[in-house]
């Protein structure tokens, strides 16, 4: 089953909330993980691994640095669903 963009955003917001305590409604497409949400590199990797599990995709290490905004991550996950 493919996840829609809104499904992925909602699921990612839950993962971010679980890792950092940031309110799910603050996790919006245009928000930067580091500059707006103040998520450090280690928490980011925890979010990435949990997102892989939740959405059944692979997010390679070299791709993680390109995921600047929540929207970058959502778009990557949506297109990686094959």
């Amino acid at each position: 089953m493919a996840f829609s963009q809104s499904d992925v955003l909602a699921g990612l917001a839950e993962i971010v909330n679980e890792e950092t305590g940031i309110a799910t409604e603050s996790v919006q497409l245009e928000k930067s993980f580091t500059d707006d949400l103040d998520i450090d590199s280690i928490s980011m990797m925890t979010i990435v691994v949990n997102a892989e599990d939740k959405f059944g995709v692979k997010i390679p290490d070299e791709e993680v640095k390109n995921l600047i905004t929540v929207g970058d991550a959502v778009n990557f996950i949506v297109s990686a669903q094959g």
Partner: protein
Amino acid sequence: MSKPVLNQYDVVKYSRIYAIGAARGDLTVTNDDIAGPIDSSDEWIRQRTGIVTRRRASKNLSLMDMAVAASNEAIAKAGIDPKDIGAVIFSTITHPFQTPSAAALLADKVGANPAPAYDVSAACAGYCYGIAQADALVRSGMAKYVLVVGGEKLSDFIDPTDRSISFLLGDGAGAAIVGPSDEPGISPTVWGSDGSHWDAVSMTSSLLDFRDGDASWPTLRQEGQTVFRWAVWEMAKTARKALEVAGIQPEDLSALVTHQANIRIIDELAKQLKLPESVVVARDIVYTGNTSAASIPLAMHALLESGEVRSGGYALEIGFGAGLAFGAQVVVLP
């Protein structure tokens, strides 16, 4: 005339760790002491690493000095004659000579001459590699007692301006005596390597580049996110496998003693293993820092000295680092 039959070693069924010794660097280095060159702060370092202080050795305290001190403590606590030591294994990445080995000198200094002695280069997995080999040497009958040392003077190989790993690192040595046992004391070891990530934790350059003037003094670096992912989720699989081959469940453990890499790795790894609250998780990193091959015996020694764990309980020890190399086994606490 009949052909004579070769003698082979008489095997020993079980082995165990008799005692552990520890020596830390003589300097207590705070986060404020090192924050300037990496444009950081005490709060930032604590939040990302859990480290409050790290122990480092002054110029006059060598890797060998710390290894000898730790070894002498382990030998004394084990109550053995050092002349009965049948092998000395020194796991280190910071012995400052290509050859001869640190182990040969250590063997002589602790009274174990002429025991076979050799170094192991498996970085933060080095102590678990050493215990694995000591277990095999004892049970095969090749050695009665084996001295295993994990020791590092990492401060000789750091760059104060490096934000990837240098600020985590400390100096120290931990030693264990492994010998024969009436009951099982060391489980099978789950160990291995993944050279496809050879440069995930590595040096900035080779010694040849340094000699030729093409690079500055080689220091340690790591790709933090790659290492974090591997150290938590891959090592959780290794830890579960170690419990499986040991034939025990997480709730049977008294302690989890991981390589003291970073508190975030330790905590996340413990979370992935779903350990019950009864299992003590070693967090020696908070005041010692990351001492690579020394970190597991130092952390275990601290738990035993503080009384947080008791002799006879099971501890899962798991080392992981440059190589990438990893090793895990369950041991009975000495």
